[in-house]
Structure formats: C-alpha cells, structure tokens
C-alpha cells in the first residue's frame, strides 16, 4: 500500500515533550458556576498583579497623548478652578475662612484631593465599559481594571502638588509638619472613589445611565463638600449630614495636615472613614457578585 504521499501533519509524538514542569504547569483550575455569593480571591489578583501595573502604566501613558498641552492639564484644571473660586467666593461673596492663610491656598489645598477623588471616580466608573473588548475576549480578574484606573490620577495629583509647593514659597510659609498625615486622608479619598467606582463600573455594564448620572453626582458633591467654604461654616444641625460625605473628612483633614489649622472633629473624621470603608466594602461585594455576567451583558 502506498502511504508516502499522504501528508498527515499532526501525528502526536508518542512521548510528548512536556514543557518544563513549573508548579503553574500542573495547577488545576476548576471552572464552575460560582454559587458563593462573594469571594475576594486575593490570590488570583496577586497572580495577575503585573497586568494590573501594565494597565495602569497604559492609562498614564495614554492620558495626555495627542493633547497639545500634555501633562500641563493636570495643573491647568485645579489652578483655573482655584482662580475662579477665589474670584467668586472670596472676592465677590466675601467668604473668608479663619485659617489665617490666603484664600487661594485654602481653596487649592481642598482642590488637590478633590481633583484626585473626581478623576478616580470618573475613570474607575468607566473602566469596565471602556475596556469591553478585553472583557469579552480574555480572562483576568475584572477587579484589575477599576484598581488600575485609580493609579494614573495619582500622577496628576503629584504634578498638581508642585503648584502648592510653589504657592508656599510665594507666600513665604511652610507646610505644617502635620503634612506627614496627608496619606491617611488621601487613602480615604481613594477608598471612597474606588468604592463608588466599583459600584458604578459594575452598574454601567448593565445600565448605560451611569455616564449621564455621574457628572451630575460629582457636581452636587462639589457643592456639598467644604471646597469653597470651611466645614466650620456649616450650621451645627447639618454637620452630621456633612460628615456622612467622606469627601468632607478628606478635605477638612487635608487642610489640617497642610495648613495646620482647623483640627477636624474626631466624629467627622470617624464618620468619613467609616462611610468610605462601607462604600468600598459594599462596592467590592457588589462588583464581585455581578462580574460573572459582565461578558454576557456588556
């Protein structure tokens, strides 16, 4: 029988040369419907950490690509807002907080964490729908996307902070030594923004109302947080309501750390931190619970 001409390309080698035996090569993955309501699976997240960093790096890299002013935008936004705020609220309306510092400094110290919070919230909320080609074509822990998107606003935050340093030099003042506590308050800002971002990114997979609702929400928050006025101007009977807004605690706290005046009341700080933590935890639970259907619905 003539067998030579028959070209069968894939005859398996009798003894397949298995690739080098790494522990990963033998790891058993079970794919099944997840019946548990919630599991964080930090181990999985850790295994994919490199992808998380690369996604964050991509965001930073792409942030100001093909813009004329580039990274200057990180400065232009808070500085312009500061100028307008000073003109309207300080000059025209006469708001004069008792911080014994120029109003520009007062407002800019508040705007810094606010800008960071706002960017985190906006970007993490858009992270899933904005990456839908990835969601439908490859597997990775979906949490990486909102997580990665809170990193690039951090770069903007540091860029914008240089202006603050410049202002201190101009006014011949020094930041208070409390400044070392700033990361605590930034962490509350991050926690809250990420928590809300988890809620909104998961919700927007199913409801495209989110992109419409979000700018409206942040606009309301802008006025409901002590950005243009000091927290002490809020009437006593509304204080508790303001304290529930984690951004209040963040801005109040940042002013205390950098300017050194206006010690935040422990109840305001406590309420902000607790609300922020609650938002983050509930966001995580909701996100993990709904992510299994992302690829089917998006």
């Amino acid at each position, binding site marked *: *029988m003539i067998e030579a*001409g028959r070209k069968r390309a*894939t005859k*398996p080698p009798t003894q397949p040369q298995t690739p080098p035996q790494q522990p990963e090569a*033998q790891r*058993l993955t*079970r794919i099944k*419907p997840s019946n548990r309501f919630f599991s964080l699976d930090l181990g999985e997240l850790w295994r994919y950490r490199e992808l998380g960093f690369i996604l964050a790096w991509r965001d930073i890299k792409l942030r100001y690509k093909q813009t004329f002013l580039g990274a200057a935008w990180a400065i232009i936004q808070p500085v312009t807002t500061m100028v307008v705020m000073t003109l309207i609220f300080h000059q025209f309306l006469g708001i004069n907080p008792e911080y014994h510092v120029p109003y520009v400094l007062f407002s800019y110290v508040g705007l810094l964490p606010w800008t960071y919070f706002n960017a985190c919230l906006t970007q993490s909320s858009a992270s899933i729908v904005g990456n839908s080609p990835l969601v439908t074509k*490859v597997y990775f822990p979906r949490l990486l996307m909102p997580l990665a998107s809170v990193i690039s606003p951090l770069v903007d935050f540091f860029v914008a902070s240089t202006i603050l340093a410049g202002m201190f030099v101009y006014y011949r003042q020094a930041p208070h030594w409390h400044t070392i506590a700033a990361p605590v308050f930034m962490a509350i800002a991050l926690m809250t923004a990420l928590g809300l971002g988890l809620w909104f990114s998961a919700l927007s997979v199913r*409801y495209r109302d989110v992109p419409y609702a979000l700018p409206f929400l942040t606009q309301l928050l802008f006025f409901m947080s002590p950005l243009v006025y000091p927290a002490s101007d809020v009437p006593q009977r509304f204080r508790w309501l303001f304290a529930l807004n984690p951004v209040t605690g963040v801005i109040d706290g940042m002013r205390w750390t950098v300017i050194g005046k206006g010690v935040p009341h422990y109840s305001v700080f406590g309420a902000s931190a607790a609300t922020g933590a609650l938002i983050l935890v509930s966001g995580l639970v909701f996100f993990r619970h709904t992510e299994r259907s992302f690829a089917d619905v998006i």
Partner: protein
Amino acid sequence: MAAFAIQAEGLSKQYRLGQHRHAYKTLREELGRATRALVRRNGDANGPGTIWALDDVSFEVEQGEVVGIVGRNGAGKTTLLKILSRITEPTRGYADLRGRIGSLLEVGTGFHPELTGRENVFLNGAILGMKRKEVARKFDEIIEFAGVEKFIDTPVKRYSSGMYVRLAFSVAAHLEPEILIVDEVLAVGDAEFQKRCLGRMDAIGKSGRTVIFVSHNMPTVTRLCQRAILLDRGRVVLDGRSEDVTAHYLHSDTGTSAHRTWPERAHAPGDDLIRLRSVRTVNTEGGTAHTVDIRRPVGIEITFDVLRSGPPVRPQVMITDESGLHSFNALDTDTRWQNSAEPGAYTSTAWVPGNLLNEGVVFVSVFVSTLSSQRTLQHVKERDIVSFQVADPLEGDSAKGEFAGRWAGVVSPLLEWTTDSVE
C-alpha cells in the same frame, strides 16, 4: 496513559434571550420589567425567554491532544470557548483544566493605536497572560517574526493593517501555556500569513501542548487536529477522529453542502460588477451531487450575474482535499470570456473528469476575476464554498483495483498499464 488536560462534565450555559450581545438596558426599562414581573410572577427558568447555548457537554482531552471543535453558527462553539477561557461562567456543570490556559479569541486584544509597537507587545503579552520577563526574553524573536523591527517605536496607528496583524499574531504565537484555546478568527489575513499561523499552531500541538481549536474550515481541522468534536444546538453530536467528524459534519445538513444559493442579491458574494447566485456540484444527469462515483465526471456549476459591462470575466475553481492540500486550479477557458462581458446571468460549469480525484471529501473554492490589461481583479473569492464526497464502489475498475483499504494521494488517476513478459 497521559493525564487529562481538560475534563468537562455536563457543561451547560443558559442565556436569557436578548441578553446575549448588546442587551444593556436603561434603568427605566429594568424598573418596568421588575414591576411587571412582580405582578405576573413568572419565574420559570426554562421559559420561552431563555436558550441553552450549551447543553450538557462532557468530554475529556488528554495532555498533548489537538482537538477541533466544529459546528455551524450558533451550535455553541464560541460559548464553549468562552467558558473554557473563563470569560463567562457555565450555568451548570464544571470543567477542570490542568496548567496555564492561554486563549486567543482574537489577535491584538488590547492593542492601542496610540502606543508604539514595543509598548503594545508588552501590553498585549500581559493581557494574554505572559509575564513581563517572559515578554522581554522573547521580544527580539517576536518582532523578528512579525518583521517590523524598523517600526517598533512607531505608534501602531501608523502601521499598515498587515503589519498590525503580523505584530499582533506574533505576540500570540509566542504564548506558551499548557492549554491553548484558539478561535478560527486567528486564521485571518492573507494566504501567506494564514500558512504561518497554521504552521505555528501545528508546532505548538507537536510540542506536547494541548490545543482546542474552533473552526468552520474543515480542511484546517483535519490537517491540524487528530480529534474533533461536533456540536449542534449546544450538544455534542459526534466526538472522534477528525476525518470522520468533519465528513459527518459536511454531509449532514449542518455544514456546507454540495449546493449553495444566495436568493438575495444584496447578501450574495461579489461586488458591483459580479454577484454569485449559486454554486453546486452536479453529476452527469444534472442532479446535485453530494457523493460522486470515483469513475464518473463531476461538474462544478457556478451561476452568477454580470451587473454591467466590464473587462473579460474569468470564472475559476480551486480544488482542495480534506487535508487542505491544493489539488489543482482551473480557469474557465471558454472563448466567450475572451471579450468584454455583457450584463446578464451566466452559468459556467467546470467538468472534473472521472478517475481523477481520490476518495474522500473534496472542497471547491470559487473565484470570479476580471482581466484587463492593467490588472487582475477578484470579484468573487469564496473558499470551500461547496463540498462533495468521492467514493469508490470497489468494483475493481478504478486506480486501486481490488484493493479495499485507504488509498493515499491527492489524485487517483486511472493509468494505462502495459505489461510484457520478459525472457
């Protein structure tokens, strides 16, 4: 016995109708639905609003096996792929996978036009599950394979589409998981590129890795895979040697057949000059030939419209055997096509003589081109559009005579033998 690489047990996936694809709703619709549901309390999970895209699918794949998943559109191939890739969860059942899983449902997932080639290689590599160090180690190899060394620091938006696809594929080709899940979309691009893709897949399969390959293209499946699984309406219909499975698929009403028609001109293959109406294989009696006696001629009948006058038209057929080998090409040499084509409907039939094609499944590709002094333009380019089976009734008068076993060769011509006695 080799250990299993994949073990799937009763995998099922249910979709709510309309949930699949672009089913996002606004909050208002959802609230309306929730209210109606409260009133009616319709909680039946198997109600008319649901569909089982996969229904109790079980199979086991050994390490080092290359398995093809075939079936027509909507048979559940993509759903199975997405479950094995962990993109979506099964509704019921489970699958165990041993080792790292790499899935290529698309080339260049996550490529960003603003980033340079270099940056995209790292980004895409990470998305496909490669470690940074691994990408760095293979980086030179990747760009060399893609042939884009000179442009590696140029944003990929400036790349030609060919360069883009080559770079994207090259990253994917250097992925080395224990289990590779590949969609046929990988086999896009020009013929040269396709060949490289398939060659690479072949090599991956031979290196002892497990490959799951989804495809519509039967010759590719038979060439790359030892084993194939046929899905139909979410169920496993057949699981066995790829030749058997593809042959079954082609000759059940689920696959390509010996007769294809396009009743609506708007959806027919072609362009503003030429549109295909139908292609079928015919026997000498004029009937559609699903199976042809090896000794009898078979005609490939191409019916098409010429929509306006144009340069001379050339219908062409290309014959491929079940392993994907080109048997031959043939241009229509009818003198009618020497001159410019007049608008109208035409039927061209190419007659393949008996005692030429070997036994097995034969695939026919149809091309219609125009030849002008400047250039050749392909208006219709339909690969593997129809297929038929060549069968030897074993009556002793074909090339293999009385022999009843498998007969090798692309063709099996009946030769004239002379035998003389010598002293």
